[in-house]
């Protein structure tokens, strides 16, 4: 007896009870649907996290100044300036794995146009800023090294600041902005970058040359960097080495004895990114396993119906055996029935899952990719469910004695 004949018999038997077959399959449909859509959404979230971190710049390491300790109360990192301009120069020249390093001076300050005012984060930096942050100017230019050298009063505005001070889609290039009352000329506007991974608005900022920041905005303690150092390593693999090398360099420069705590802190964005990604992945697998449980429940539904079906069709089984069906034929017939149920459910579930996932993707503004492995896995798993939960009823059917089955009322 060919497998095709067996399949045909199985499908016909299922079509004889269309409603029952559909309801039985529903468990698998829902299970597969849940797995597909949950995994797709999880993958989408992961891709979104990756995108967010990529937008923050590649291979970024942040060096924060150390803690202050006053009367036993430890301030957090950054509460006291410990990093000097010489430290920055040393990092640039002495650490080979560092591609670029830039001081990120920052302070909250009020900025004013002729009509409006706004309080934003003013950053003092050098032209390497664009490279380190993987950022571009949208209009105008970024300030140059000579602006930094002479302490020019020029500013590059983030999109949010432009919107607040000059109105949506305005072009403020060449106009004047007052920062802490000091007039600066606007030379450029940064491309819109959106939220950071921490939920801050990247575009709510004004960037000025670091020398100008020091003289006009910072005030006092000129030797220290009022902010942090952002370093980008030559490539992702070098990030860890760059961290170690910088830590050794800074400990040496700050004369920290072995066993003493660092007076600075080095953080790696890649580590943060992978931590967030691991979190997303954990949630994805949690959702997927909940969905997988519903597949198993669906499988139990199939087993239940197959057992009913075997009992109902005992006489049919007896007759088939009387005319020459071997136990194997009966086993395969019922196995094919449960397999057909679960696989059909799997296929419908995938279709429903794909549609839902892409709709969800549209709603969240994510790119939803359904990977072929997921589809293959879902079909395979639903088939497996059909076999696992079909084998018991099928074996029960194949072990019937012909006369007992024929006599069954």
């Amino acid at each position: 007896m060919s497998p095709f004949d067996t399949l045909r018999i199985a499908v016909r038997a299922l079509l004889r009870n269309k409603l029952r077959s559909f309801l039985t399959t529903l468990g698998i449909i829902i299970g597969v649907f849940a797995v597909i859509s949950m995994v797709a959404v999880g993958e989408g979230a992961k891709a979104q996290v990756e995108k967010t971190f990529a937008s923050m710049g590649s291979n970024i390491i942040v060096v924060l100044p150390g803690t202050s300790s006053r009367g036993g109360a430890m301030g957090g990192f950054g509460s006291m300036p410990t990093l000097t301009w010489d430290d920055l120069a040393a990092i640039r020249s002495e650490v080979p794995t560092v591609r670029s390093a830039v001081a990120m001076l920052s302070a909250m300050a009020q900025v004013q146009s002729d009509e409006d005012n706004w309080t934003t984060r003013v950053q003092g930096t050098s032209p390497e800023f664009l490279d380190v942050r993987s950022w571009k100017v949208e209009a105008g230019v970024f300030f140059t090294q000579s602006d930094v050298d002479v302490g020019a009063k020029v500013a590059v505005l983030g999109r949010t600041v432009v919107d607040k001070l000059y109105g949506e889609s305005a072009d403020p290039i060449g106009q004047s902005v007052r920062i802490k009352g000091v007039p600066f000329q606007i030379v450029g506007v940064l491309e819109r970058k959106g939220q950071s991974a921490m939920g801050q608005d990247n575009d709510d900022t004004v960037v000025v040359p670091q020398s100008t920041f020091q003289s006009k905005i910072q005030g006092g303690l000129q030797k220290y960097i009022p902010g942090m150092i952002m370093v980008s390593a030559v490539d992702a693999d070098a990030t860890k080495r760059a961290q170690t090398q910088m830590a050794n360099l800074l400990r040496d420069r700050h004369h920290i004895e072995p066993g003493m705590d660092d007076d600075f802190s080095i953080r790696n964005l890649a580590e943060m990114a992978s931590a967030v990604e691991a979190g997303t992945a954990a949630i994805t697998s949690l959702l997927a396993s909940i969905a997988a449980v519903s597949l198993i429940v669906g499988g139990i539904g199939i087993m239940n119906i197959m057992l009913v079906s075997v009992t109902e069709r005992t006489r049919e089984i007896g007759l088939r055996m009387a005319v020459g069906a071997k136990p194997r034929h009966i086993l395969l017939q019922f196995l094919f029935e449960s397999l057909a149920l679960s696989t059909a459910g799997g296929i419908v579930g995938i279709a429903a899952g794909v549609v839902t996932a892409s709709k969800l993707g549209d709603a969240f503004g994510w790119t939803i990719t359904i990977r072929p492995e997921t589809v293959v896995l879902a079909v395979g798993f639903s088939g497996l469910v059909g076999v696992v939960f079909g084998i018991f009823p099928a074996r029960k059917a194949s072990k019937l004695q012909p006369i007992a089955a024929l006599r069954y009322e």
Partner: protein
Amino acid sequence: MHDAPLVRLEQVTKIYRMGDVEVGALRGVDFTLERGEFVAVMGASGSGKSTLMQIVGCLDGPTSGRYWLEGRDVSSLGANALAEVRNTTLGFVFQSFNLLARTSAVENVELPMLYAGVGARERRRRALEALDQVGLSSRAHHHPNQLSGGQQQRVAIARAIVGRPRVILADEPTGNLDSQSSVEIMQLFQTLGANGMTVMLVTHEPDIAQFAARVVVMRDGLIKTDTRQTPKAAHAEAAS
């Protein structure tokens, strides 16, 4: 091998366990069936006639004793081998027809060939041929619920003969039929017998047994009488 009788039972017993009680359905039966015979097995219910048929039909094995079918000892074959014997050597007709519901007559007839591995086209051709033999070619695509009892039993007979078996085993084939249909079915068996088919029929109705050439009467698990007679012609009866 051709010298051996078609069916030979030697001291066959069959004991059923019902809870703690053992019931001897057959208690040492010797029985032979030659090619081309038309035998009716009679007896009250509980006499062992159905058990005898099940053992001859390889649906059940004997508790003790030997059974040779076409000279081959089949008393200790496994489930697969017995299925094959039933498929190729035996044809069954049951009291309750046992047709598959919502399945056309011709597909019901094809069933044994499905398990014999006959190709689809050949299956259809032979099934239609068998339906023609039982006079139902015009109803080939009707479902059982569209057929009368007599017609359903004819479909079942077509299914029994389609695999060209050595012997047809009919268990109370007229039990669910009116007397007119019963005679028609017996006429069909007689025609098959005339064409060389061996028929073994179980019945408790003497009216039906008179169409057979040999009558075996059973009582309490043993064969009580085994007589040959001139069978009554069913077509004469059907005509009257």
